[in-house]
């Protein structure tokens, strides 16, 4: 390269190419994304967070929660289980067949073959799709996170470090509002040895004047504030807890299928 013009041209070309690939293309592909159809349903996903949870997203941003927490469930692949739903007209043959066949941890093709054999014998079966991976085995989610999970978030904060656990589905793991608030106020009171800093500045410790506030935190034994005092969340704490309780990526989508577990009665 003999002159400055050539150098600038080279840099323009190299950076321009990567700009087209990692800025322009994603903006065209993801920036125009719309709500997705939930698999086997007519519902749309995501629906957007309620107002208080949306304000909580800003509390999450302001306090840099994403410095320690990810919102990205990882997945290795899927396995299929074939579940017999009805033995049909020839229960003995179907039952013999079912005990002879391998019905869990199957690939999609093997599961289809097994289902075909069962239906040929007159039985009825369902194929359940189960996502696999360490995060899913830990109970951090049912499926991998996808771009749709972040559709209405601004800023999007997927995080990059797991100094604390993944939060994609924290609302499913710990759905109790009081648990979330107490955990923010004094993490070590609920998770022994937790490395999370307490966020006491999001709460107010005050003297109980007359009746206790309905918002006051309920502590487990040994962690209560001094007698005559109560711990009340400031608005930011309530918003942050509302955001955490809105974190649930539990619907199957085309790009991340799974069979939802039966709803508990």
């Amino acid at each position, binding site marked *: 390269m003999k002159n400055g013009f050539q*150098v600038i041209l080279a840099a323009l070309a190299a950076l321009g190419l990567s700009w087209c690939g990692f800025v322009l293309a994603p903006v065209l592909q993801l920036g125009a994304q719309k709500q997705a159809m939930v698999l086997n349903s007519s519902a749309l996903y995501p629906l957007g967070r309620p107002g208080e949870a949306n304000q909580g997203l800003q509390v999450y941003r302001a306090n840099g929660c994403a410095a320690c927490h990810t919102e990205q469930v990882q997945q290795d692949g899927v396995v299929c289980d074939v579940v017999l739903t009805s033995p049909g007209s020839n229960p003995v043959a179907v039952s013999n067949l079912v005990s002879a066949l391998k019905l869990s941890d199957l690939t999609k093709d093997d599961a289809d073959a097994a289902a075909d054999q069962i239906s040929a014998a007159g039985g009825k079966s369902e194929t359940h799709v189960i996502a696999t991976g360490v995060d899913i085995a830990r109970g951090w989610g049912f499926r991998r996170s996808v771009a749709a999970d972040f559709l209405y978030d601004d800023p999007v904060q997927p995080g990059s470090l797991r100094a604390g656990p993944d939060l994609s589905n924290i609302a499913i793991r710990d759905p109790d509002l009081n648990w979330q608030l107490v955990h923010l106020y004094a993490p070590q009171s609920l998770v022994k040895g937790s490395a999370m800093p307490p966020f006491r500045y999001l709460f107010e410790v005050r003297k109980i004047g007359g009746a206790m506030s309905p918002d006051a935190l309920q502590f487990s034994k040994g962690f209560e504030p001094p007698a005559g005092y109560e711990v009340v969340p400031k608005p930011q704490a309530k918003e942050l807890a509302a955001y955490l309780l809105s974190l649930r990526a539990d619907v199957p989508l085309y790009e991340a299928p799974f069979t939802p577990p039966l709803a508990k009665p």
Partner: protein
Amino acid sequence: MTTPDPGAKAPDTALDASCRVPLLALFGGAAFWLVAGLLLSLAAIMTFHQPDLFADCPLLTYGRVQPAANDALLYGFCVPAALGVVLWILVRLGQTELVLPLVPIAGANLWHLGVLVGVVAILIGDSTGFAWLEFPRGGSVLLFAGYLLIAMSAVATFGARKERELYPSHWFLLAALLWFPWIYSTANLLLVAWPVRGMAQAVIDWWFSNNLLFVWLALVGIGAAFYLLPKLSGRPLQSHYLAQFAFWMFIVFGSWCGIPQGAPVPAWLPTASSVAAVLTLVPLLVVAIIARNTVYGSTAVCRGGPLCYVKFGTAAFLVSGFMFITSACPHFSRIIGFTWFGPAQVQLQILGFFTIVMCGAIYELLPRIMGFALPFPKFVRAQHWLFMLGVLLWAGALAVGGVEQGIKLSDPSSAFADSTAAALMALRVGTTGLVLILLGALLFALNVFAVTFKWKMALLKAGIAAIKEPLEAESAPARSDTGEVKA
């Protein structure tokens, strides 16, 4: 004209002196932010020693102080130090005085004001929430304006060069000058000013931080090393052809890295990044060959001086690059993804590679632009040892802790708390390293501040003398006049 060979050039005092004031403005602020950033890092890591240390102090909560520390180091130290070194190298290689010397002074002040605004904004909870782009609008506008002013002077100096032939450092530094405004404006416009929707935000942020932390720092750091290694070791760069090959490969493939494996985005994005990262191995190896061949057989002894700095920095660049490539391979990222291994690589890149190369360059150029020796020459060697040990302990502990944490995390039968505990031990060991680096940074800041102080005192004395001289000259005959009248 022969090929410009920085090793053969006699120091030209007039050229060096033309950079004096703008470089002092850039380096003074940079030295301050280096110390401030490391202090903030230390405050951040203290949370892992005692979680409830800052439970009542929102300003110092980990999630705020950690990005503030990172940005203070990157924007407060790395970029202004880099720009100062770039100006000096362009002056030296071009054999011309700095053009528009007042403009970069204004630029440096705007830049450091922008960093102050940005860091304070993060601490009071006004961060944008995007990694490495946390400064809100006010801070980033100041940074951008400051950068343009400094780059304007750099480009004008390049255009006015008397030595017309280009040296390999020119390619790297010119590319870097163009790189920053492009990525910084793209990221700020599409993430902060008019945010795009959904996950595209995260992709742009990854693209930006990769292009700043991996590509930009490497362009300036390696560009400076390719100037300093031959100059300090007394052997010409081996060779210009290899350097050209490394430059091309690096800007073409390096700029496509950075999308983490398993990210919730269309699969082609992380795949493209993974391929690009593996291909970036080629320019890294070529840089290693160039550096080794240039230094090998040199009789220059470094004795903890600038040559030691640049050698260690180049080695750290290679290690950090290999760590970066490793974490982009799906096979390894399954284990070390989301662990402290990532921060370890970033800390090695910023502190082990870039800060050390820049400090070495500044120790080399500071006595020349000032025209007097460093006030504390022994600090140079002490800082070199402190930094070397500190970086090995700090980045090494984080990396080892990250791998341990990753092994625990990737085993679903081991409790999550075990992975935290594995990392916690390493973080506590690493803190010692961080303290050593901080001590080294203090020595650096002392030298820079003492130089500035000495220069300002000399200016003051010269100024007073300049005022006194005509006064004394006037008053002396005046007295004799009145004496005559009286007589």
